[in-house]
């Protein structure tokens, strides 16, 4: 039976937590009640990328996009839209509404500038149904590789595509595969890095939840290319939905004979196992990850030997990121040259980013390399909310850096970002407005690395801790002349001497904020002032005598009794006693108290 309409209810982690399960159930129920269940299909999908607006529902064939759908809206949508063909404008995502028409999802500003290769099926298929993956060319690339190509040709195609690792390092994928292919030792292994530890990042999770088969297929292709018959997916246990969908996908792929023995009757065997990580950031580092897979402590080791020579169980192994893998099937099907025609001179293809922070449309986006930060923030992201001024964008997570307004026209590619003092990283983009204190931002990321440092090497274990202490000192108003220089010296030493990427890149957030926002550090140290008004220790709470009505509510609520006054005269705050908790600001009915 053909269904004339499909109701896609997002089943990504974002929408599930905003209640999409209930919305889906309600749709099924109401559609049945209306007698439409033979004509209309309800599908649970992966993430659409607009999690902020969840639960998200898209109705095909029109592509009408409903946002923030509550279960109680469902009967109306079913009755009006599904039965009578009149989309319910009041529940539709505002940016797709026009005077007389409703634009389909792909034509809204959020989607128009995107180009979805790795995310091609996310939000479009039911990830728990292998047939839907197959319908949109799933496993076709594997079939092509196994029946028409030699391993050398596969590697050549991937090299031609110019694909570089999406997990942070940016190493050319084809070269990595070739390296492993040339190793004589067997057995060999293929590992998928799905540890995704950057705070706020959810690119890999969304791919695994929305299109797990693309990763399985790519791993099998990689196995064929390097001569491996076994794969591991290392995924953090904090991604229960991704793990569940992966398990279902592996199970179905085995049932359909797309994993296992003698795939397509070609004699090629390949199978995949899931390994759960406990969610330590350092376990995303490849050598630590290898240790963790083998049941050892997740600590890094020096390289060489590289995993391609000595990986899992001491055997040749390739490790690639989830998004890297998701790009492989389209490269095989459309050719390396096709992929290389997208992007810039040295950075090919697209990149997925998790766009968050002070921006109107937060979400998951995929753009061609070379797109500028301005396009991402102002066109796709819809600009900064509340008419605030843009200050900086943090890119690359705890290993990355901040890019200021002057450099908004920087194109997104590996080299431009590195020369701007940031890095591509795995794809976190945090937008910050004028109310953000850059010293505080640096402190946030450093706190993260201090927490996540495995402690194996001294520069990382002790050095980052010392840096954090300095930042603490500066933000609490105790900064002294010379602290900035100390920070810089520590940063240089740590970068040069730490054992693994975690330590080597940990100082980046500090260095990049020092590079572009040194004046903010200086204001904290020399003038004991936080220009953005964030660092509480440097602020004082004051009562505006003009606005104060002497009601005394602030004094009654002050937990330390720091506010004094008498009827009819404005109250005052004793700065010595004030602990800057902010209670008085919240309680004042006249908005008479402010920070300065």
């Amino acid at each position, binding site marked *: 039976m053909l269904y004339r*309409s499909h109701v896609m209810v997002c089943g990504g982690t974002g929408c599930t937590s905003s209640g999409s399960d209930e919305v889906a159930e309600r749709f099924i129920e109401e559609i049945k009640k209306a007698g439409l269940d033979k004509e209309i299909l309800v599908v649970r999908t992966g993430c659409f990328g607009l999690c902020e607006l969840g639960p998200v529902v898209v109705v095909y*064939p029109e592509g009408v996009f409903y946002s923030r759908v509550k279960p109680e809206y469902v009967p109306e949508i079913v009755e009006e839209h599904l039965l*009578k*063909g009149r989309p319910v404008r009041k529940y539709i995502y505002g940016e797709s509404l026009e005077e007389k028409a409703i634009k389909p999802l792909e034509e809204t500003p959020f989607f128009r500038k995107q180009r979805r290769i790795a995310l091609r099926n996310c939000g479009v298929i039911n990830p728990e149904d292998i047939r839907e993956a197959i319908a949109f060319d799933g496993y076709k690339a594997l079939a092509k590789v196994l029946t028409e190509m030699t391993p050398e040709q596969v590697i050549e195609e991937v090299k031609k595509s110019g694909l570089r690792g999406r997990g942070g390092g940016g190493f050319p994928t084809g070269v990595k595969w070739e390296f492993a292919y040339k190793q004589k030792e067997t057995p060999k292994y293929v590992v998928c890095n799905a540890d995704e530890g950057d705070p706020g990042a959810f690119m890999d999770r969304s791919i695994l939840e929305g299109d797990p088969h693309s990763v399985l297929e790519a791993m099998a292709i990689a196995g064929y290319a390097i001569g491996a018959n076994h794969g591991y997916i290392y995924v953090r246990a904090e991604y229960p939905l991704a793990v569940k969908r992966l398990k279902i996908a592996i199970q179905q792929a085995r049932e*359909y004979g797309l994993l296992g023995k*003698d795939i*397509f009757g070609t004699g090629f065997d390949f199978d995949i196992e899931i390994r759960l990580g406990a969610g330590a950031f350092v376990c995303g580092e490849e050598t630590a990850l290898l240790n963790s897979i083998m049941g050892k402590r997740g600590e890094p080791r020096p390289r060489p030997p590289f995993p391609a020579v000595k990986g899992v169980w001491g055997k040749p192994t390739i490790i690639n990121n989830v998004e890297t893998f998701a790009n492989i099937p389209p490269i095989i099907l459309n050719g390396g040259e096709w992929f290389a025609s997208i992007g810039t001179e040295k950075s090919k293809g697209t990149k997925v980013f998790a766009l968050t922070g002070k921006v109107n449309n937060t979400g998951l986006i995929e753009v061609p390399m070379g797109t500028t930060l301005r396009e991402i923030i102002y066109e796709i992201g819809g600009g900064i909310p509340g008419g605030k001024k843009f200050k900086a964008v943090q890119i690359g997570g705890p290993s990355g850096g901040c890019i200021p307004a002057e450099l908004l026209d920087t194109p997104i590619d590996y080299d431009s970002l590195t020369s701007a003092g940031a890095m591509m990283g795995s794809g976190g983009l945090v937008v910050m407005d004028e109310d953000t204190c850059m010293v505080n931002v640096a402190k946030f990321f450093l706190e993260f690395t201090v927490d996540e440092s495995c402690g194996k090497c001294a520069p990382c274990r002790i050095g980052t801790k010392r840096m954090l202490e300095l930042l603490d000192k500066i933000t609490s108003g105790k900064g002294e002349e010379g602290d900035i220089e100390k920070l810089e010296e520590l940063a240089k030493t740590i970068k040069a001497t730490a054992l693994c990427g975690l330590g080597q890149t940990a100082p980046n957030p500090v260095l990049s904020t020092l590079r572009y926002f040194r004046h903010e550090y200086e204001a904290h140290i020399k003038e004991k002032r936080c220009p953005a008004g964030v660092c509480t220790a440097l602020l004082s709470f004051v009562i505006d005598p003009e606005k104060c009505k002497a009601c005394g509510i602030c004094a009654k609520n002050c937990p330390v009794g720091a506010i004094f006054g008498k009827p009819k005269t404005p109250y005052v705050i004793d700065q010595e006693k004030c602990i800057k908790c902010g209670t008085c600001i919240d309680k004042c009915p006249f908005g008479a108290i402010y920070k300065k």
Partner: protein
Amino acid sequence: MKTLEELERIRKETLEKINLRKDRSGVRIAVGMATCGIAAGARQVMMAILDELAKRNVTNVLVTETGCIGMCKLEPIVDVYMPGQEKVTYVKVDEKKARQIVVEHVINGHPIREWTIENYE
């Protein structure tokens, strides 16, 4: 999976069912499904169209519902949009006519003029 043919078969079979999520270039049939249309039997017309398409393995046709166009007494109304051609509006369609529209117009490309709105006396 032992053969490529098998993969291709599953691909085609499933694509028919879910292609409407991606492909917007094919033929579109819109059935008037406001209160008036439904009262006049638009639901059965829609089901007949879906059934006929499925029976004949036609994949690139989208069937949608549309609202009332203000000619309630002519319902059920069915619009057929073919790429690059003007829309053809059929009026007073019933199940039998609907099946024929699918075969003659949508598949064979010959609009059935005597049932269109222009020729309604």
